[in-house]
């Protein structure tokens, strides 16, 4: 969800004024980096029109910055000649585009049916205990964000989870400490 920010708080001011504030804001805010722009340009070259590359652009920026801030939304919108609302409508639709800051490592724990039957609940409880966070939260040291995820497609090795790009299958409660340790 788009967090209340300076722009949104200006609801009652007139549109032109808000736009002016927005554009001044933009200049102050981060723009896309050279690396991001080059990667986005490549994606744009593969599609019939700029807008069609917006998901790729979000992926590219998130890869560099870990999450998509309001300023990143504005920068992408500007670059692809779209409205910020349009970019945000796409960004907020997909669960793996993060519109809030996430920790250094993102844990995706499968909560779908095969893992449910095989006891993902116990894994979740153990993770809550060890990290002191619940689904949707980030540890105080900014190291881990814990998120539920739909079926990871390895139901014959349930319960399953991913940490960043690494898949863990047949996860047992007593292995968690060791697994988490390797990401510290």
């Amino acid at each position, binding site marked *: 969800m788009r967090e209340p920010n300076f722009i949104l708080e200006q609801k009652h001011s007139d549109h032109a004024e808000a736009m002016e504030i927005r554009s001044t804001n933009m200049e102050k805010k981060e723009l896309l980096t050279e690396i991001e722009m080059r990667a986005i340009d490549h994606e744009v070259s593969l599609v019939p029109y700029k807008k069609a*590359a917006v998901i790729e652009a979000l992926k590219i920026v998130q890869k560099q910055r870990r999450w998509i801030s309001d300023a990143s939304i504005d920068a992408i919108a500007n670059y692809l000649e779209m409205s910020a609302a349009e970019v945000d409508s796409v960004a907020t*639709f997909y669960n793996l585009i993060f519109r809030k800051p996430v920790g250094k490592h993102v844990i995706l724990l499968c909560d779908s049916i095969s893992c449910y*039957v095989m006891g993902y609940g116990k894994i979740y409880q153990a993770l809550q205990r060890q990290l002191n966070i619940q689904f949707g939260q980030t540890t105080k040291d900014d190291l881990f964000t814990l998120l539920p995820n*739909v079926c990871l*497609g*390895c*139901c*014959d*090795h349930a319960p399953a989870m991913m940490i960043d790009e690494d898949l863990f299958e047949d996860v047992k409660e007593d292995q968690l400490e060791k697994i988490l340790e390797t990401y510290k």
Partner: protein
Amino acid sequence: MEQPLTKNIITGKTLSLKEYEQAGGYAALRKVLKNNAPQEVQQMVKDSGLKGRGGAGFSTGIKWSFVPMDEDARHPKYLICNADEMEPGTFKDRLLLEGNPHQLLEGMILAAYAIKADISYVFLRWAYRKAAEIMEKSISDAYAAGYLGKNILGTGWNLEMYLHTGVGRYICGEETALLNALEGKRATPRAKPPFPQVSGLYGKPTIVNNVETLCCLPHIINNGAAWFKSLSASEDSGTKLYGVSGKVKRPGVWELPLGTTMREIIEEYAGGMANGYRLKGVLPGGASTDFLTEQHLDIKMDYASVAAAGSRLGTGTMIIMDDATCPIGFVHNLQHFFAQESCGWCTPCREGLPWVEKILLGLEKGKGSTEDIELLQMHTQYLGPGNTYCALAPGAMEPLQSALKYFKDDFVEHIEKHKCPYEV
């Protein structure tokens, strides 16, 4: 027993281009490009009786036949591989993607040729990181070998191929939602007609086929329709990747004749139930299929037989519900999933599924009433087929309506005892 799709797959290994060629790979493509017009390939596949392995089970050849093939057909035409495997309990395409990527690529190139496509995409879910790496390399190897790109095998036909990895959301597996996702939009399904065959990606003729479906194509071309039919143990053609997950001795996925019985798959291949557990229910083909029970174990796992028993073959990957798992908790988990994954376009789905989830949670916590059962029954009608643009809500209702039928006693017990009787 022949297992054409998996015979060259060794667990944990990926067949390289060279190994695939040595095993007879890309021979079907060479044969077809030399001898057959695209329409002839369509006819071969139609004759083979191949049905889509993604869940819907529609004839692949007939699906293709709606693509405009005349001189003034609009280009570019697109061929898309749906590798967005996200149906809960489904893990069959992963094996094909990771184990034998060129079999899929050859299938895709054959399908693209059959509809005279110019551009093809592999739409792969984000979570399949290893498959993404493998597909990336395989596509580049296929380009280098002249199976992709300009003037393929000297025939003058061009085909580009790209890998697209998603950013989540189950609904991307719905073929028109997938098209919107590829176009950089919210993955909301589209109203049909027009069908993608006529107006698909960027409004151009498009075919979307499942991974397993596409992997069948080289074998059909090499060995013929009669052979493909002979692989099956039922009216349907070919083999099927069947999977079993849940509390069984050996969960896994196996390629077997289409129409192998549920009993054989669960008891022989999966080794039967784990010690101390009894089978209470089976979702035969993913989260959006109706429950079957012990009485159905001897049915053949083919499209018609599973339908006659009141369910669907779906993806062919079974989820077993054991007798220690609460059916209400089980169905609540499913409805939580569907409510969360609804794209929000159609009102019955957007509003109905969270309601269903809430009712089930109340029942599970012992706070339900008999009225709740009626409410759930009502939802199975209002969210059933014909009220929404896509099959997400009707699919969600399948396990619910059959749970109300087969596990009614459990619902009643939760209401009467004011608690979940499965809680230890």
